[in-house]
């Protein structure tokens, strides 16, 4: 079980860049240990200068946005490396929902698996949300209602976002994916039995081979 996500209130920060990659979300310097401080590593190279001092111009270093729970991001957010630490870093920092016009595929999967909502917003909604943040820079407080798939801005205006029903329900219930899959374990076993009968060449213990690859020429 994960912490279920239904209703959330918090600050929204805007990062308008397109194609923000996971190297940028969590630079590799924070991947060297299983126990690195990922909250600090979030956008590490953009948040801190060479000597580790905060760059005041980066949005997450600015007053209300330091406590952001929601991130409004650009196209193709989370592209590049599959590093799941990108989602962990967002979550450890406190961001539970990212809204963008589109997400990179692996990031999208990783987000839901870690209880982070990746909500799709259209261009009009994106601009309206960004404008609302701008109007309320001192207290950009938003409310996300996952069952209703809406975001209420500080002026009380409701905006819709898109999330597949099955994924929303899983976040609401706090599902564990492995438990869900293991419910089908008999079917998985039957599948492998049939597949082994049909394609024995693929499943006959691959590790029986000698240890040393013998040839490398094409």
């Amino acid at each position, binding site marked *: 079980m994960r912490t279920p996500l239904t209703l959330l209130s918090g600050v929204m920060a805007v990062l308008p860049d397109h194609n923000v990659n996971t190297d940028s979300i969590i630079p590799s310097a924070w991947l060297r240990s299983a126990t690195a401080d990922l909250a600090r590593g979030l956008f590490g190279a953009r948040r801190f200068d060479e000597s580790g001092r905060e760059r005041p111009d980066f949005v997450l270093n600015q007053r209300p946005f330091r406590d952001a729970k929601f991130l409004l991001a650009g196209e*193709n957010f989370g592209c590049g490396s599959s590093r799941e630490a990108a989602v962990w870093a967002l979550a450890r920092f406190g961001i539970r929902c990212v809204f963008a016009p589109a997400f990179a595929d692996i990031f999208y999967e990783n987000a839901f698996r870690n209880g982070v909502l990746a909500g799709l917003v259209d261009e009009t909604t994106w601009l309206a949300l960004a404008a609302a943040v701008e109007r309320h820079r001192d207290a950009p407080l938003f409310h996300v209602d996952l069952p209703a798939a809406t975001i209420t801005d500080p002026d009380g205006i409701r905006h819709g976002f898109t999330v597949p029903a*099955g994924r929303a329900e899983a976040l609401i219930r706090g599902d564990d994916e492995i438990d869900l899959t293991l419910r089908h374990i008999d079917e998985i076993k039957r599948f492998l039995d049939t597949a082994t009968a049909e394609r024995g060449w693929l499943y006959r213990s691959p590790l029986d081979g000698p240890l040393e690859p013998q040839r490398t020429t094409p």
Partner: protein
Amino acid sequence: MADSDRGAQPRAPVRTSPEGAEPPRTVFDKIWDAHRIRTLEDGRDLVFVDRHVLQETTSAQAFAGLARAGRRVRHPELTIATQDHILSTVPGRDETTNPDGRELLGLMRSNAGRHGIRHFGLDDPGQGIVHVIAPESGFALPGSLLACGDSHTSTVGGLGALGIGVGTSEVEHVLATQTLALTRPRPMRVRFEGARGPGVTAKDLILYMIGALGVAAGRGCAVEYAGAAVRALPVEARLTLCNMSIEFGARLGLVAPDDATAAYVSGRPFAPRGADFERAREEWRALISDEHAAFDRDEVIDCDRVAPQITWGTSPQDVAGVDGVVPDPAGFADARRRDLAAEALRYMGLEPGMPLEGLPIDVAFIGSCTNGRLSDLEAAAEVVRGRRVAPSVWALVVPGSQAVRRAAEARGLHRVFQDAGFEWREAGCSMCVSINEDVVPTGARCLATSNRNFENRQGRGSRTHLASPATVAAAALAGRVTDVRRTEVFAGEARP
């Protein structure tokens, strides 16, 4: 809230013929369907994972998760592990040479040992980059579905396998269940027609394609690379092509297997043998896209027009022919792209209109899962043979696996490189991701055969240009970006 999953968007209509014959399918569809266990309530497919490859930087938390839940590895015999990302590539290395890597390297070794998983550690002759050892050991096979906690798993598509790059939670999911719950990708095709000119490699073709179609064009797709120019590529070059499907935003890329693929696989340690191999080969023959199979998107690239490519910006789509110039951001129609290009030029220290050829470089890196195979090292060595690296350039060759290193040494390639002034390293990811000690100095310009030119990827403030092994080799010698077609290797070869 949408009813169906995002990726279950417009699927190609299923055509049924009046005779009740099988509807035409793409090669991707055929392999996917053979691995689908069931469709889940949320629209995703639960698929069986035939092969699973582990590396040290994305598996530690997965094993920790298994331990917390008291679960075991369901099929250790379908899993292999290696150390590649964070280990040192310095000759004579061990797990402590890069002190920062000790923890994760140790965890990979102990987790593999505890769960009975075959571990190709840094002292094992089979060690190497995940996407290099999976094909070369025969672990990845045509028609198989292979998962790995690393985005460039698409590489094995060069054999006609479905290579699925996943995150750490999914690694844990595969370890516990030997399955993945995935949104079915939509089939897309890119046909490379015509023929490559001299000095133009698979790396140039894929960079050109990403430049032409953009880094998000493949999102949600399984891309089949087809056409005469792809058929003509040796298998190792097809691995290079499929490797960079990720830079195109695709879920995976693949090339339908053919006789060359079967010949490549035959005799490799984990490959089927004897009657099993003959059976397999028969089945691989059916792995082609049927004539009327529907693709969500179909693109054509005319290879005759492709020059050796080099990136100028901080995204793989920021690419041009080596005989071209740095573009003027004002020339991009899209306002956001304009801003990004301007920002990229500032970061890269370039001005619009500068010719790419002649740009001085500081570092030359030959290696990675994109271009760290034997044929890549041979192509670079051909350019280097008998010449010297420019004194101002730090040049290194990092074979993609120990098997590649041994094969290259058997051919004397290490001497060609060392005599020229290149460092000759042990196998690993090295300067592709720079999480070991192989870091590009701040502000230095590096020509690299890897796949990502993101800001700070090779070290803080590093300036990365992506290119083919031959182009990087030529630049290392000249100390500046060079059109490889002008070097002696290609001089005299007529341009098509």
